[in-house]
């Protein structure tokens, strides 16, 4: 299957050996859009790398740029003002909602429903509007800066965000009814693609796919890196059957996570220091702190980050070209790069018609996988 195939959200090949309609063996083949970001970043300034990290994953750009920014701050030893952290949380969670909506929109056509696709895109547009107010673009925002954020919350952003998030919470319930009340959806998603949590973690799968297995491991909890421990939210955990987490669990956990992210945004808008309505000009010490340009030789920085697909991580070594202006080595940990082999092993024994139902439920994103 693939590279050009409706099942592959992105560009990769899954070599499937079938017996009749039963899948016997699968071999994933990646690397169709391998772009060598790590090599290019070795000749870029720390501020220029953010754009490449935006373009790593096309479904959730903000989370990846933030993931890089935290690692860079770990390398450059920067302290970030708290208001900037709150703004980052808002941006990341909005992006997470948009990414999960894109996943839901791509998952439903896989099993034959086009209506939910358009509905999810319609709701994703609202999130993109909010992010556009922050970052200025539709997809690739280049929003965070080392030591803070590019821009403060626009005037009136809080009001609009509250309204749109409330509308989103209503509409996601609508979409949920469309899917959960449909027996066909249940028989297609329940009982396919069982995955055990221990096995998943051993294979390197993280994020919602593991939480669908009934384990509440979340980097935002276990290693709180931002103001997540000051916000009022819960990790969404599913209650799977004995055999493990099936596609329906993965669908449910993502929908719950969207709710949690929305509530988190509302809470952050309430708790943000300095007030959500006040607008600080660019470069204000409230939203960005001074950061040095160069990293000394031998210094390393890394950061585990809860991407919308799992645990993403940047490992950076300082002291590169131009007397440390460039990183010597930057290495990217992509959750999907390890999830896709496991997902392709998951679908052995099921029917061909289940391949999209399983692979789509793991939310593959090839941009980050091939980097």
């Amino acid at each position, binding site marked *: 299957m693939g590279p050009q195939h409706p099942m592959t959200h992105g560009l990769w090949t899954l070599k499937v050996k079938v017996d009749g309609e039963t899948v016997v063996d699968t071999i994933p083949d990646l690397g169709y859009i391998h772009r*060598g970001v790590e090599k290019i970043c070795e000749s870029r300034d720390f501020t220029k790398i953010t754009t490449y990290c935006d373009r790593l994953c096309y479904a959730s750009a903000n989370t990846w740029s933030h993931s890089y920014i935290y690692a860079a701050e770990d390398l450059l030893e920067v302290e970030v003002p708290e208001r900037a952290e709150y703004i980052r949380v808002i941006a990341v969670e909005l992006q997470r909602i948009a990414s999960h909506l894109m996943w839901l929109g791509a998952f439903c056509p896989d099993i034959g429903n086009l209506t939910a696709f358009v509905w999810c895109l319609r709701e994703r547009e609202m999130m993109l509007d909010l992010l556009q107010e922050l970052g200025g673009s539709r997809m690739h925002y280049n929003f965070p800066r080392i030591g803070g954020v590019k821009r403060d919350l626009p005037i009136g952003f809080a009001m609009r965000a509250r309204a749109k998030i409330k509308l989103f919470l209503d509409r996601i319930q609508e979409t949920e009814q469309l899917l959960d009340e449909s027996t066909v959806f249940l028989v297609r998603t329940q009982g396919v693609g069982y995955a055990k949590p221990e096995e998943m973690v051993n294979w390197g799968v993280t994020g919602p796919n593991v939480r669908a297995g009934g384990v509440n491991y979340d980097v935002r909890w276990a290693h709180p890196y931002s103001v997540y421990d000051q916000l009022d939210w819960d990790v969404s955990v599913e209650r799977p059957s004995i055999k493990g987490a099936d596609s329906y669990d993965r669908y449910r956990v993502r929908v719950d996570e969207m709710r949690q992210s929305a509530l988190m945004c509302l809470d952050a808008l309430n708790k943000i220091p300095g007030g959500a309505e006040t607008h600080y000009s660019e470069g204000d010490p409230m939203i960005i702190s001074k950061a040095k340009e160069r990293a000394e030789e031998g210094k390393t920085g890394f950061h585990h980050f809860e991407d919308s697909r799992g645990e993403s991580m940047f490992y950076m070594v300082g002291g590169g070209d131009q007397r440390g202006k460039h990183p010597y080595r930057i290495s990217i940990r992509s959750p999907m790069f390890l999830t896709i082999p496991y997902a392709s092993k998951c679908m052995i024994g099921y029917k061909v018609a289940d391949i999209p139902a399983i692979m789509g439920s793991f939310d593959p994103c090839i941009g980050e996988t091939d980097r």
Partner: protein
Amino acid sequence: MVFSLGIKTRGEYAEEAAQQVIDAAIVRWQGTGLEAEVRNHKSGMARPYVYIKCPRNHWRAVAKWLRFEMGADHCSMITGIHWPDGPDDCKWEVVAHLMRMNVINPPERGGWTKQVIRDPKILQDDDVPMEFEVSISIPDTRNPSVQSVQEVWMGADWNEKETWDLVGIDFEGHENMRRVLQPHDTPVGFHPLQRQHKIRYHDFEVMYDDAQGFGRKAIDEGKTK
């Protein structure tokens, strides 16, 4: 309700846990040249993590120890670095990031599984989520290689494939090593992340138009953007 695992594990609990790992390592690996220390993240919340400098020939044993005794059940990343002008004993370096997730299969109850919601109050020494950073340095050689930990963590499988594909560090005992990101017909020995390979136009200040001479410039002439 606010139910934050992180607040509890950030402070002294994490310090204690990290220190326990260090002590265990010193007891277990004395005489092998293994160094272990507690380091802190420098940004945000200064969380501790365990840094282990592992000798090259003990890597698999250390990995098994970490996996089965220290409970580092998640191999987050294995990557390699090429130091052409580094010290002689460290021309190549392999860095592995592990995590202790304490993820277990949720127990069954009545046909369904119970959700494993851990109560932070009972999170003690080896239940605290912990980050490990293991660095293995390889002396100057033409074809660097370390032991493979493929059977310890399945997640290390593709990480090692990618490390060999991009950096060129081979892993002894790794099954079906192949190109994962680069095309399968890539010339043998081409590993782009080695420092001797330069990117395109690395010595150009500006990218000149019409790189391949397909006449794009002629069409763009007179256009103002």
